[in-house]
Every structure is written in C-alpha cells, then in structure tokens.
C-alpha cells in the first residue's frame, strides 16, 4: 500500500488527556516516536502506561488531545492503520478452546495475511511453538501463552508493534530469547516498537529511548544512558525507584 504519511512519526501524541470520572489517568502528555525506533514507557502502577497505549491503539478515546499513528488520527481513522500494526497485552487473551494453530489461522485471515500456512510455520519455528501448535490455547502455561500472543502480534508483520509487559510471565531464559527475537524482528522489518515494561534490564537492552510516566505526566524522556547520567545512577532500576519514591530532587 502506498503510504502518503511515510515521513510522519510512527506515533505522534499531542496534549493527550484522559479523565475517568474524577481521576486523571493521563495528564497532558506529548511525544513523538520516530519510525524504526524502540521506545519504552516506564512507570509504576497507575502511572498511565496502559491508558496511553490504549489511546494509541484506539481502544480508549482521549478526553482531549490527539493521537496520530502512522500519520492517521486515532481512533477516527483506525481503519487506515489497524492492518499495519499489532499488539500484545496481558489484558486480552485468545479463545481458549481453539488450538494455537486455529487461533493463528483466524487472526492471519483477519489481517489478510498471504501465505498464511507458511507464515504460521515460520512463527512456530521462530518462537518455538511447534510442540503445542495443535493444543488448545487454554491448556498452555503462562510462558507458552505469552509466546503465542507474541506470534499473534507478529502474524501480519506489523510496521508498528505495541507491547504491554511482553516478558512478564517468562523465565529468564525464555525472556532473553523473546528479547533477542524482538531485536531481530525490529532490524529485519525496520519496525517501530513501543513497549510498556517493569523490567529495567529489558528496557536497557531493547530501547533507544525511555519515557518515564508518573501520575499521568511525563517525568522524563531521554535515551537510557542519558537518563542514567542525569539521575547519576548506574541502572535504570535505580532511576525508577528514585522517580517512584519521589527522590528526584535529591537525586538530581
């Protein structure tokens, strides 16, 4: 498909606000995500990460402000871009009674994937799904489910991938393996990845940029090394604790 918005940022968020009743989940945030980059949204529980990702996906309507994805306004023009992006989130599952292969087939057809059988075979090999490809999705372990969800998120070779805690339930070996796969995918596809994570090692390894959210506002926005230097800390984990515990003034 010819993309008339190829020069626009992958994601362009301006003065985004989301208020649920009286609670402000996201409070006037603005940022642009460059194409082919990997960016992390960091923040404690209730910082506004999931709501922000929900608004980027078009699942949550902003109270005010705008979100443009691949040059198109969300959620109003979501039909223009949903086929070119995908996501993985702990807030959704796939039908449990269907086998992994059936689920991937259904989603492949929804995304009009050509050579679907080949694509499923490739993902099964890449993500080590072969042993349980014909098992019901409901019988899988948490780690296996995460890999299947990632396979679903990659089924359409998305230009933009949104990931919410992509390695949350995986053992260190499997998590490392997934990160390597994401790195390779990003390089091979030239994809843009936005991920929300609590795993600081993951963020340092994968991301070019970190946006730290606190109480719905952007607390900081820089490269991982830039943020570490500014807070005078060795690791992002220490920075995260500084921000979460309100030690920002002292640290800086």
């Amino acid at each position, binding site marked *: 498909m010819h993309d008339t918005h190829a020069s626009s940022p992958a994601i362009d968020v301006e003065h985004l606000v*989301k208020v649920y009743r009286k609670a402000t989940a996201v409070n006037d945030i603005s940022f642009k995500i460059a194409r082919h980059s990997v960016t992390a949204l960091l923040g404690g529980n209730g910082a506004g990460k999931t709501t922000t990702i929900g608004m980027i996906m078009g699942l949550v309507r902003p109270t005010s402000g705008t979100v443009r994805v691949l040059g198109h306004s969300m959620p109003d*023009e979501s039909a223009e871009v949903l086929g070119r992006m995908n996501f993985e989130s702990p807030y*959704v599952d796939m039908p449990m009674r269907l086998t992994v292969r059936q689920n991937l087939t259904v989603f492949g*057809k929804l995304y009009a994937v050509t050579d679907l059988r080949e694509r499923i075979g490739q993902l099964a090999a890449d993500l080590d799904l072969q042993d349980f490809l014909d098992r019901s999705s409901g019988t899988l372990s948490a780690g296996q489910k995460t890999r299947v969800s990632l396979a679903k998120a990659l089924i359409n070779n998305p230009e933009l991938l949104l990931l919410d805690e992509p390695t949350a339930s995986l053992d260190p070996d499997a998590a490392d393996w997934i990160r390597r796969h994401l790195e390779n995918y990003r390089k091979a596809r030239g994809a843009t990845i936005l991920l929300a994570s609590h795993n600081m090692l993951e963020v340092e390894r994968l991301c070019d940029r970190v946006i730290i959210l606190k109480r719905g506002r952007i607390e900081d926005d820089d490269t991982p090394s830039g943020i570490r230097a500014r807070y005078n800390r060795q690791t992002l984990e220490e920075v995260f604790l500084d921000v979460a515990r309100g030690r920002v003034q002292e640290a800086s």
Partner: protein
Amino acid sequence: MNALTEGLPRHGIGWHRIGAMLLRHWYLLTSSWPRLLEMVYWPALTLISWGFLQNYISGNASFFAKAGGTLIGAIILWDILFRGQLGFSMSFLEEMWSRNLGNLMMSPLTPFEFLLSLMIMSLIRLAIGVVPMVVMAAVFFNFNVFGLGLALVAFFCNLILTSWAVGIVVSGLVVRNGMGAESLAWTLVFILLPLACVYYPVSVLPAWLQWVAWLLPPTYVFEGMRALMIDKVFRADLMIEALAINAGLFVVAIVVFVALLNSARSHGKLIQSGE
C-alpha cells in the same frame, strides 16, 4: 468523525474478515460436542412437551381441534425468535468470556463486520437447533412447518430481524457495562413472550397493552400465523407492517450499539472487556 458512522465500513465490507470470524466460531462449535448437543436439546425438549399437551387438549376442546397445530406453530416460531437472539448473543459472549474482544477491536475487523458475522452465526446456530425440531414436529405431531408455504419466509424474516435487533442492543450493553449485563442475553427477549402474544390473540390483552403489543414486530407474525392456520388467510398487510417496524428497530439497534461502543471506548472498557 460522527460517532454514529464510526462503526460503518469505509472501504466496503471485508468478507475475508467475516469469513475469519465464521471460521473462529466453526472451530469453537466443532471442538465441543456438548455445545452442539445443547443447541438441539432444549428446542427438542420444548417441542415434545408442548406437542403432547396440544395433542391432549385438541382431543378435549373443540377450538383446539379446529385450530390444530397453532400451539406447535407458535412454539417453532417463538424458538426462531428466541434462538436467533441467543445464537447472536452467545457468539458475542464467547468473545467476552475468552477476553478476545480487545484483540478483535484492535484488528482491521470493523464493528459493522463484527455484527454481520454475529448475524450469520445466529443463522447457523439457529439451523442446528431448529432443523431437528422441525423434523420432530413432522414425525411425532404430523405438523409440517413448510406447509405454511411462502408465509413461513415472511414469518422467518421478520422474527430473525427482531432477534438480531435485540441481540445487537444486548451486545452493546455488555460491551459498555461488562459481564454484569450478561444475564440480559438470556432474559431480555422473554419480555416479548407475553407482549407479542405468542400463544394467544392480541384481543386477550387489556386495551392499553394492545397498543404496546402492536409496537412489536413479532406480534404481527404470531397474529399472522393464527390467521393462516385458523382462518386460512395469509395477512400480507401484517407482514409488511412488521417489516416496516423491524427496519426502524434495526436502525435504532445499530445506532444504540455504536453509541454504547463509543461510550465503552470513552470509559476504557475495551481494554478490560473480560471484567
């Protein structure tokens, strides 16, 4: 964009996406024989119970002897309405139970295509339940529903349109309010049972309630069925009036669904759709 047009497809209907949704439900149905059995079991049980009752009272009451088959006809037509709505709502609820709605809303599937796939699934589920029922009515009670002829097509179209309208509104309420509204899928349609005069003529109702009854398309169908079976007259006028009300009802249902979907988006319900 106008909120009311948000659910409508802007690049035509993606039949491959509708095909994908039908495949999803086909996989589900064929993965569980108890699911299939349950779809046949209740209609068959209802037919047998009421069929024998009709046999009994038709031998003891001259009216029922004259109007033979009206009870069985009413049962089959009511089941078309009830099972049509249930088939729609069950297919929708499967997405809620499996927390899959977020995946679908985030995919290129439009809300309109989603509803269309649910309508087709309701026809498939209805066929699985009602076809054995129709066969049993012919075998055990000598009632051939196809003896209603072309009128059956008119009855069926009107009933299925009403069932879809109810199913669409219920789905919207569940999207907006979460699984707390699930019970509406099983209960809401039953308000039509007394008001649409399934088993008795409209004249039985008090005058003020007759006004309400005539606002409901199924009332016209059940009156039409009685006219056909008792007086041997096909009331085309009733079917046209029912179709006109159904058209309005269907548009209202779509508008309500899109409004509830937009409200769910505003309240962040689509990323917590299993709750």
